[in-house]
Every structure is written in C-alpha cells, then in structure tokens.
C-alpha cells in the first residue's frame, strides 16, 4: 500500500512536471472559476467571510481587494474594533509600565501568608531527621519513642506521607490527628487571606453563581457590597464570569495582575481576527508569531513569569510592525526582544572557556577575574558559559530550515556570536549588549569569517548572513506558501517566490504579491485544500454567524479546549501549519460542541445573528455560512435529518444540561449542523 502511495506521489510529481509545458490535469494549473475566487480569497487572506463580505469583494474586484489587503495602511480600520479594544488598556502600555504595574516577582508569588510547614530538619538533628525519612522501620520507631510527647506530636505532624505508611499503628493515628489539626489551621489561615466564594456568599447566592441566569447573576452583583463584587467575579468559572468583563477584570487586578495582561492580549487577538478590516495583517501576525514562537507560560529561573507580560509586547513591538516589511528587520526585532532572549535562553549565554567561571573553574564567583558581585542582577549567579539553544533554532526554525546547510559547528559559532545579547536585569527586561559576556574570539559562520573583537556587531553580522542566505529565501517562501496555498505547495511557485525574496532583499510584501497573483494560488488545487486550525475554525465560525461579540474571553477558552491554547505552545516550532495535525476524534467532537454552543447563543459575550436566517431553507443557510453550496453528502444528510421525525423522544427533549434545546429545527439547529460539517472544517 505504501508502494502504491509512492507510485501516486511519483506520478503526481510527473504530472506537475508535465503541466509546466501546458498540460492542464494538474489541479494547480486549473484556474479557479470567478464564482469561487471570492470565497477563496476570503478564506485565505481573511479569517473567512462575514455576512456581506462577498458582496463587498465582488463590488471592488478580487484583484483590487488583494492589493488593498497587502497595503493595510490604505484601509481605514473598523471603528467597531477600535471601540472593543479600548477597554483593554494594557495593550497600549510599554514593557516598563507593565513591569511596574502588573508584574509580581517570584518571591511575592509564593503565599507569604501561609505559615511555612515545619520540617523534620528543624525539629531533629540532621542525622535523626535523615533516619526518620530514609531509615529502616526500626530506626524510625526508636527515634519516635525517644521523644517528649509534645515534640513527638510536632515530628509526627511533619512526616511526609510516604513515611507515614511505615510507622506503628498508634503513632500513625496520632500523626494523622496532628496533621489534620495542622492542615486545618493552615487552610483556615489561607482562607482568611484568600476568601472563596462560599466565604463571600450565602448558599442561595452561591446557587445563583452556579446555575442562575445572566440576569439573576447581574442582580446578585447589584445587591452585593461594591468591594465584594470584583472578588466574587474573579472567582467565578470562566464561562460564568465572561458576561461581566469589568468586574472580572477588577477581581483579577487584585488577585493576579499578570492575568489581566494575558487576558487583554488573548482577547485582542480574537477580536482583531473577527473585526479587523485589515484581515491579511491579522492573518500574518498569527503566522509570523507562530513562526517565531515564544511561550507565555515559560517560567524563567529566578526571574519568574515575566513571559506573561513580554509575550504581548513581543507580538506588538517585534512582530506586528514588520509583517509587510523586510524579513531581516523582523528577524532582528525578534532576536533582540527580551521575550525571545528569555525563551530560547540567549540572555544567559556567555563566552565559553574564556571565563574564569567555567564548570571547571576553581572559583565560580569571578568572571574574567572580576568579582561576580558587580554583575547586574540576574547575572550574579550561576551562568558561566555557552547556551546553544537560540544559535540552533534561529537557523533551523527561523531562517535556513533544518536542511538549510548548517552544521553543529555553525550552531556553536552562531551561539558564540550572540553571547552578550541579553536583558538589562529582571526588573528591566530590555535588550542590552553586555560586552563582558561576549566571546571575543574569531568565528566562522556558514563559511563567513567573523574576525575577533567584533562585539555586538558579531550578532548583527549573523542576522545579515542568515537573512540573505538562499536557504532562507526558499524556506520562508515555502512556509508562506504552505500557509496560503496548500500543505504541500507547488515547488515552481516556491521557487518564484524565493527568487523575488532574493531580488528584493527579503521584501515580504513583494513575495506575497507573487504568491497571491500566481496561477497556483488561484487554482482548483489550492481551493479548500487547507484544514482550519482550531483558532481559524473558531474565528471563522463567529464571523460566519455574524452578530456581535462584546467580549472574547469565553472564545479564548473555547480555542484552548480545541487543543491549541493561544500563545502557549511550549516548543519553539509553534503550532503545526498542516492539516493532518488537527484530524482527531477529540478535536472534531470539540468542533461540533463549539458549533452547537455558538449557534444557540450559549457562548458568553457572543450574540449570533440568526434572525437573518429565519425561515430560510438549509441550502440558503449553507450558502450564507460557507460562502458556497454544501457538498451533496452534507446537503443530503441534513435534508434526511430534517424530514424524518428522528427519535421522537429526542424531539421533545427539554433543554439539556448545556442549555442546548433540542426538538426545534430552526436556523440555530441547521447552523449547528453546518458549522460542524466537514465542509466548514476546510478553507
């Protein structure tokens, strides 16, 4: 069977070759009919059509619309979007302001109010503590016997659970009682500091927070003391809190201000994707962030959860300004942003061997003979040599591609060039070049000699070499074509894009222009060839149903449930760009669940407009939501489902626990089927 697949592959390659000389059986050389072009560009350069979008593109003409999308500065931004972004005020703060007002350094994040648990070592001699922990049953019993009752109670209370299993019955009972008392005391103290819902509300009010309607919940908030309101809102589960963005925000500001920055950033991404008139720009910000991925939940040793804040400024300051610019500027901006410096460890990478603090140094407290204590903040610690992480990934993932022709020696040379590219200190995460960390020796990068003594210039030179390398032109062109044309894009197109990349010094707009005006892009081969990612599925569905999204908080958690939480891909390769990754039973069920929740208006903050679909037949609704006819199989399944009464018991089902009414086969019902259909999972 695999041989068969291979044969097919080879013959399709053969066909590709033939088409260049005029054969039209290659789908990438079959021109898409006019009627399909509009929905195609809306699915590729935008996050799918909103009601009315197709007419607008038709009036303007496809070519003009593409041109405008490539020049977003000529498109007035949607005022509705600007109004929705306005309350998310952390979007506009500088990194410094965010650090000053929203950052909790690691030591404050522990719970200082919590009484530290007494440790065995505080109660017993080192040797005895060790025996109790790791010794034999006899050793343990002997020590316990020898203790005064009061002391013994304390020791028993401090025993780890694994030891507890192996002490005599009488002591175990005593220990359990002591631990219970200890725990109660501790949790009471914790609760005083961190009230839970049931500390703030009476049972009836609790019930409202669990199962009351939105109106009942609003009435409850109105009744509560003003200072209690944000506390309560901050404690509600996401789907309950989503209807009260203001209160939730105040609650979070009190409990965990960094969360506010992340929430603003997540919501803004979804709102822009839904509402921006500059759709291509938003598609590209998503694409390039993923290409230069960083993870907001990476914890930086001794610095804390600073990525919670920097991920937002990274996208805003390093990615967004350059998506229509030159690749080199994008590469440099990411290389110097503290988010990337932290994420791929370059902030910590120092000259190897040249220091008196290497792993083999007798005394790690000096650097090149200088006492380490003069080093600023985070550097006065254990760092003492090279870290290859950024040096490798900048070539493998950001520029050349894994087959781009670099070696392990190049990885080390590049890492050495970037030594000293770091951040000022944990409180001030801004790029600095720290010369005392820099490897001043000579390096050879991809055949280019970089002379000794170059300083900050070394890294800049590497950026230049990488940005202008032919492998980069090809790799970046292929990545773009994979996002916009097909999972396995036609090599001839990639070649032409790469040539333009090289000719124009990496002008991304020019490269995209070649792609969007190519016959391969506007071909049957590209049409509906891509599977929607979870983010694309959610956003395109919200756009398709129309209506109003007042806040995107709940949508953000729906995207997470589909398996790709925003800004939270641990590995530096980002989320996959090809469809096979999203084909899973869980993922598909999740998409169907989401479709139903959206169609029936069950997602807080999202009010779908189904009135325009009232009394329309399924075929019309399908054209409205998909932008084209549903496949014959999908149409047939819906028609059959609607004509048969189905399971008569189900038809009279009351509202299910999820609140989705069954039995009424109106527009919401048909919308559920269409958004959940295989047709809607493609773009």
């Amino acid at each position: 069977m695999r041989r068969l697949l291979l044969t097919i592959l080879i013959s399709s390659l053969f066909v590709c070759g033939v088409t260049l000389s005029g054969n039209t059986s290659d789908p990438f050389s079959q021109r898409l009919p006019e009627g399909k072009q509009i929905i195609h560009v809306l699915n590729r350069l935008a996050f799918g059509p909103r009601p009315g979008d197709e007419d607008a593109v038709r009036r303007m003409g496809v070519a003009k619309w593409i041109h405008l999308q490539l020049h977003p500065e000529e498109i007035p931004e949607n005022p509705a979007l600007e109004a929705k972004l306005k309350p998310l005020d952390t979007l506009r703060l500088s990194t410094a302001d965010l650090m000053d007002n929203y950052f909790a350094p690691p030591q404050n994040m522990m719970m200082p109010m919590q009484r530290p648990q007494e440790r065995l070592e505080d109660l017993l001699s080192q040797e005895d503590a060790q025996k109790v922990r790791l010794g034999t049953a006899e050793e343990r019993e002997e020590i316990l016997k020898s203790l005064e009752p009061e002391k013994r109670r304390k020791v028993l209370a401090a025993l780890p659970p694994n030891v507890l299993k192996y002490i005599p019955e009488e002591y175990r009972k005593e220990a359990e009682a002591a631990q219970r008392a200890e725990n109660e005391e501790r949790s009471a103290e914790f609760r005083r500091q961190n009230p839970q819902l049931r500390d703030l509300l009476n049972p009836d009010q609790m019930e409202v927070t669990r199962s009351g309607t939105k109106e009942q919940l609003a009435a409850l908030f109105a009744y509560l003391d003003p200072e209690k309101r944000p506390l309560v809102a901050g404690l509600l589960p996401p789907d309950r809190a989503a209807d009260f963005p203001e209160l939730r925000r105040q609650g979070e500001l009190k409990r965990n201000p960094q969360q506010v920055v992340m929430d603003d950033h997540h919501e803004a991404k979804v709102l822009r994707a839904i509402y921006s008139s500059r759709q291509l720009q938003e598609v590209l910000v998503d694409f390039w962030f993923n290409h230069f991925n960083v993870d907001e939940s990476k914890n930086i040793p001794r610095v804390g959860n600073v990525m919670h804040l920097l991920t937002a400024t990274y996208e805003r300051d390093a990615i967004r300004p350059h998506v229509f610019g030159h690749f080199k500027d994008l590469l440099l901006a990411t290389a110097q942003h503290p988010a990337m410096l932290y994420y791929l460890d370059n902030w910590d990478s120092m000259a190897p061997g040249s220091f008196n603090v290497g792993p083999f140094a007798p005394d790690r407290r000096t650097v090149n003979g200088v006492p380490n204590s003069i080093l600023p903040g985070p550097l006065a610690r254990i760092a003492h040599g090279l870290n290859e992480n950024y040096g490798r990934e900048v070539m493998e993932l950001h520029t050349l591609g894994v087959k781009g022709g670099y070696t392990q020696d190049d990885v080390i040379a590049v890492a050495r060039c970037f030594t000293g590219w770091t951040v000022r200190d944990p409180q001030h995460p801004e790029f600095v070049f720290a010369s005392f960390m820099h490897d001043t020796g000579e390096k050879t990068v991809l055949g280019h000699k970089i002379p000794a003594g170059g300083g900050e210039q070394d890294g800049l030179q590497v950026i230049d070499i990488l940005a202008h390398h032919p492998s980069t032109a090809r790799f970046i062109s292929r990545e773009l074509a994979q996002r916009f044309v097909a999972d396995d894009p036609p090599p001839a197109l990639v070649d032409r894009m790469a040539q333009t990349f090289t000719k124009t010094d990496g002008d991304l707009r020019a490269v995209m222009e070649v792609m969007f005006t190519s016959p391969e892009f506007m071909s049957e081969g590209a049409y509906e060839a891509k599977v929607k990612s979870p983010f694309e599925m959610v956003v395109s569905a919200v756009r398709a149903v129309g209506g109003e999204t007042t806040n995107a908080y709940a949508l953000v958690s729906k995207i997470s449930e589909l398996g790709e939480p925003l800004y939270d891909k641990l590995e530096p390769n980002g989320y996959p760009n090809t469809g096979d990754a999203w084909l899973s039973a869980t993922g598909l069920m999740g998409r169907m669940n989401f479709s139903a929740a959206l169609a029936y208006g069950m997602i807080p903050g999202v009010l779908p407009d189904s009135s325009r679909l009232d009394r329309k037949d399924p075929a019309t609704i399908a054209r409205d939501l998909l932008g084209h006819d549903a496949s014959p199989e999908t149409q047939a399944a819906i028609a059959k489902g609607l004509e048969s009464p189905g399971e008569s018991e189900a038809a009279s089902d009351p509202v299910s626990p999820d609140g989705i009414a069954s039995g009424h086969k109106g527009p919401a019902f048909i919308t559920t089927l269409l958004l959940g259909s295989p047709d809607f999972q493609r773009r």
Partner: protein
Amino acid sequence: MSTRRIFLRDSAIVLAGIGAVPSWLARAATLADQNGGDQRRKVLVAIFMRGAADGLNIVVPFSERRYHELRPTLRIAAPTRKVAASDSGRDNRFSNEAIDLDGTFALHGALQPLKPLWDKGQLAIVEATGSPDSSRSHFDAQDFMESGTTSKNLGDGWLNRALPPATDGTSPLRAVTLGNQVAHTLRGEREVIAIGNAQQFNLGNSEATSILESMYNSSNDPLWGRTGRNAFEVMKIMDSINRDSYSPQDGEYNQGGQLGRSLQQLARLIKANVGVEAAFAEIDGWDHHGNEGPQLSERLRQFSSALSAFSQDMGDRMEDIVIITMSEFGRTVEENGDAGTDHGHGSLMMVLGGPVKGGKVYGKWPGLEKEQLFEGRDLAVTTDYRDVLGELVREHMGQKDLDSVFPGFKAGDPLGLLRV
C-alpha cells in the same frame, strides 16, 4: 432506542441513548461469541519524552569518573548506600538521592515510584540507545524516530505499520493516541484514533448528533470523513466507559500530570476490553537548556507517578502489556553555561510490563572518556533504537515482518528483553 442498553460480555461497555450501536461493537460481540468470550489482547504502549530527555541524569552512571567531572553542578551524587531490594519502607521521593540499581547505574531519586517495578522484574533499562542519525534537531529527530527510520521522514509511523491488517472484529480503538492529535508514531494506513479531552465526547443535542453522524458516514472528504466515522463510534464507547470509572490510583494519576491523565484514560479503555492493541502517549518539557536540576526532577516525578499508577491500576493485566519509553536524542555529557545541557546524541529507553525480563540494565555502555564520546561530546549509541522496538514488535505484537516496520534496517543481536 434511548432506553435500550447493550451489554457486551466481559466488557464494561453499557450503551444508552446515543443512536445506533457502534458497528464495531456488534461485530466484536459476534466474534467474542465465536471465540468463547476472550477479550484480552496484548498491548504495546509507546511513550515519547519530547524535547530530548537527559538520559545521563535519569539513569545515572554514577561509577563514571568523567560523569562527575563534566557535570560539576548538575551531577547526581552516587547513592550513599546500597538499597536492599525488599526495603520498600524507604522512599526517596522527597530526596534527590539516587537509587542504586546494580552498583553501576542508579535511578534519579524522583523515579522512586518505579523502584518497586524494578524489584519485581518488570522494568528494564536499555542504555546508550538512539538513532545513528546525528541531527540534533528536535523536530527532525522526532520525525525520524516516529517514522522508524534514521534520516527519512515517512508520512506514517512505525507503530501503525506494526499493526496487522484489520479484520471484521478489529476495533476502532485498536490504536489510540492519548492526546489531541494522532501522533506521527501511530499515523498511517491502519485505523487509529486520538483521544484527548474525554469531556468532548458528549454532544448535548441528540438529534443533531445523529444527523452529523450520518453526514460524516457519507462524507467523501478524504481527511474528515474517516476521522468523523471513527469519532462517532468512539463517542458511544467512551460515553459508557467513562460513566463509572473510579480507580484507587486516581490520586497518583493526578500527580502524573498530562501523562497521568493519558494513562488513566488508557487504563479505562484496556479494562473495558474495547480491543486496544497499540497506544501512544507523550510527556513534553525535557529540553532543559538551563536550570535543569529542579525542572528535571519535576518532570521525572510526573513521569514515574504516571507509570506507577498505571501499572498498579492494571494489576495482573500488566501481563498483557509492554510499555516502551523513548526520547529523540540525549543531551551533552558536559553541562553548558547555564546549569543545563544542550542537544546531544545517545540516550536510554525503558521497557516496562509483565512480559519484561526486568531488573537489568541492557545494552553496551560505551563510556564517557573523550575518545569514547560521539563527535567528542555526546554519549555514543551502541544499540539502535530499532533493535529495541523491533524486538517488542516481533515478540509482543507478533509482527514478524520487521522490514515493513523498519524499512532497510538490519537488526543486531537480540537483546532478550522479554520472557518468551
């Protein structure tokens, strides 16, 4: 229909109220009648540690002088005393002291929950394993290892090719990825399914569900049609399995993080006799370029809790199960400038399960002297990872045609990992 219940003999499946009986279930029930009701199958579970786990600090070669020299801050001290096999009253979970295995190698202290398996002979270590490929790229190396090759990315995975062709009684759950997407290891021609968040397998609206089911059953979409058909079959099975699924190991599974939840779900599937033959789970976060010590401990704590919980939960069903762990490559022998390690070469694999001849470190230890290292810096590979996988595929899964599973690979001497 909504009140109709179908019981499959010997299985925990009870179906209620969600449309038609899964067709596989009907077939399997017939088949079970023919076979006298035996639903137990052999299962091979592959666990991928993504990010290149630091083998040298997981199973510590504490008797190597060079190990201690090259890792001045990261090294794990030699165990202070030999631990008798029966002394289970001692628990290192809260200390970092290494646990002596054989006087040469020791387990990282956070792997204490695995020690009882070693003592029972259900855990074997294969040292200095990996791929001969010298790519130090995570993503290439994972693709190659999951393909079952050294430097070629095949579209399908070795574990899919190891499965026999489907028959009438073959379950849609025969090959399961625990996670949101089908892992490369399991991708391919044979039916395979990904199960992540089990909560999703519950569509609120039963009428919409049955229309969507028929829509996907008739779909011509080459990608979504198949996924959808499987999804609806599995939804019915999952619904019944997860309805009553308490296990005394649930607490320990929780300590196992994502891997714990994956193995917990797998255990439910296996116990329900739904025909699982191969499974894949993963645990990420092993790419410790900096501050490795505490991060590795935390990962290993989850890893060992998950495996220990699974093994206890399965009880004597472990006789049918072999688990194999792998990572795309190892890490540099010498620690880097950040109290971490960079991308290396050789690593190790763990083999767990009832059929395993455990309590032994397999493989040829290449040594850590400069001239013994791969490219002068990394642990050498003396046992090709396909020798280990191949033996399990042949002996446990009964797939004798190894060339179709690992194309072009010539197997070395058998390691003798399993009791046969």
